[in-house]
């Protein structure tokens, strides 16, 4: 469904990615783990068009995303819930959700309303806060809003950047349960996480990124058993 082929990305003089390749098949949960600054977010940004790779190519459902603007990529069914959630703090929860469906046509009105109900069923806490401004939500609620909003784009592929960042353990559990549910309902997921423990549990496959390169990849459960991953990412001595 998604194929990233040997992409390199630089921010001015700083090289963030040096030839990253990865693929995601329909129906999978794939996770991308790595330390701070490894280039995880940059990889997602390249996929959603926010940064342009200097070389390499990205294919989504068989077509190249080279030169396609971010707002057009959303229309292709690829939604990106960014690092730090990116909710619009001055807007209400309800308006934030509406923005999630911005790319969809007016004629899809009924379908959008249905998706909205589904997203709110997934995150009932948001339903109670529809009129509240998003800036006043707790960190966990903002994360829920960011995910619900991404779902309103009706993505076939969902990119999630560190959904568990800074959240209390119970909320992290909840978020990961919902990631499973979203996947079970038919959405393919590419998940970036620092919480490697949880990410490897939920994912089918995993890639390990170190300073802009993929250093390991494979079945998530098997990777979790290797010494390198246990030592570097799971905190086993």
């Amino acid at each position, binding site marked *: 469904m998604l194929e990233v082929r040997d992409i390199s990305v630089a921010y001015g003089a700083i090289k963030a990615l040096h030839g990253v390749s990865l693929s995601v098949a329909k129906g999978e949960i794939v996770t991308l783990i790595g330390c701070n600054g490894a280039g995880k977010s940059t990889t997602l940004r390249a996929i959603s068009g926010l940064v342009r790779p200097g070389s390499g190519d990205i294919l989504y459902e068989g077509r190249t995303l080279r030169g396609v603007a971010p707002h057009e990529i959303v229309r292709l069914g690829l939604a990106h819930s*960014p690092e730090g959630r990116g909710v619009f703090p001055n807007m209400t929860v309800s308006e934030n959700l509406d923005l999630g469906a911005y790319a969809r046509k007016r004629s899809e009105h009924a379908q959008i309303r249905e998706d909205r109900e589904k997203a709110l069923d997934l995150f009932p806490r948001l339903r109670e806060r529809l009129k509240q401004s998003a800036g006043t939500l707790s960190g966990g609620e903002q994360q829920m809003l960011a995910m619900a*909003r991404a779902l309103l784009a009706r993505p076939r592929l969902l990119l999630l950047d560190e959904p568990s960042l800074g959240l209390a353990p119970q909320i992290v559990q909840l978020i990961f349960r919902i990631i499973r549910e979203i996947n079970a309902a038919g959405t393919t997921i590419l998940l970036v996480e620092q919480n490697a423990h949880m990410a490897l549990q939920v994912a089918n496959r995993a890639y390990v990124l170190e300073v802009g390169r993929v250093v390991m990849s494979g079945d998530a459960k098997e990777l979790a058993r290797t010494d390198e991953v246990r030592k570097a990412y799971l905190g086993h001595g």
Partner: protein
Amino acid sequence: MDQLLQTLKDGIAIGSLYALIALGYTMVYGILKFINFAHSDVVVLGAWLSLLFARKLEAVTGWGAPPWWAGALVLILAMAACALAGFCIERLAYKPIRGAPRLNVLITAIGVSLFLQNMGQQEWMFGTRPANIPALVNDATLFTVGRVNFTLLDAAGVGTALALMVGLEWLVFHTKIGRGMRAVSHSTATASLMGVPVNRVISTTFVIGSALAAAGGFLWALKYSQIKQTADTSWTLLGLKAFVAAVVGGIGNVRGAMLGGLAIGMLEMFGAAYLWSSMTDVYVFGLLIAVLLLRPGGILGKAVVEKV
């Protein structure tokens, strides 16, 4: 009592004009985070185009007294022409340097401003001599309170400004494109991830801001009937005051610009009526300094707190 009423009336009239112009500054700042110095020149363009359209209309219809729709038609034409001008300015001058350092953008804005001023002075454009706009409203006194007359012209001016502001408020807070504008103003990148076409939103912002500027120029022409040449300092001062209104209200904040415009207008008129009439500019810039010292974000501006 009469003086109070008269001052209030004048304050609202000039304040709503400032507000219309301030909206253009604030909308562009909200989205692109730069001060569009060429904005006041679009106001001037609006005033001069109103004059040209009014003369044309007068010649074509050969009116003795202007028909009731003359003002509306001239206003719409001027707004449409300035909207187009705003679109072109953004496309030709600002879009190519999107993402460039702020100083470059600022210098470009000053360049656009000088260009418009100098082009307007050419004889084949508006020339360097002041001109008078034909009467567009068949003025009459509607009612009188004490010794203060409320005329059709007063009502038309304030009514037009209010209608446009209500329309803008509705657009920004209750439509899809308005939601897109607010999203882009918070974060271009995140907005684009929502599917908001950022470039189109920016174009729309310039188009709307310039149309409102044209309305400001039109109302100015209606009010003072004499229109000065495009590089006249009175225009610069008008633009500066509208800019102050935007800052006082909270730059980037649409409601703030409306409030700031009215505040500045009232301050000027009350200062002139009850203090020294020669010092109106001092009051305005004094208020600016006070606001910047006490509430740097402006009256309605507030720091946005983001949770981590």
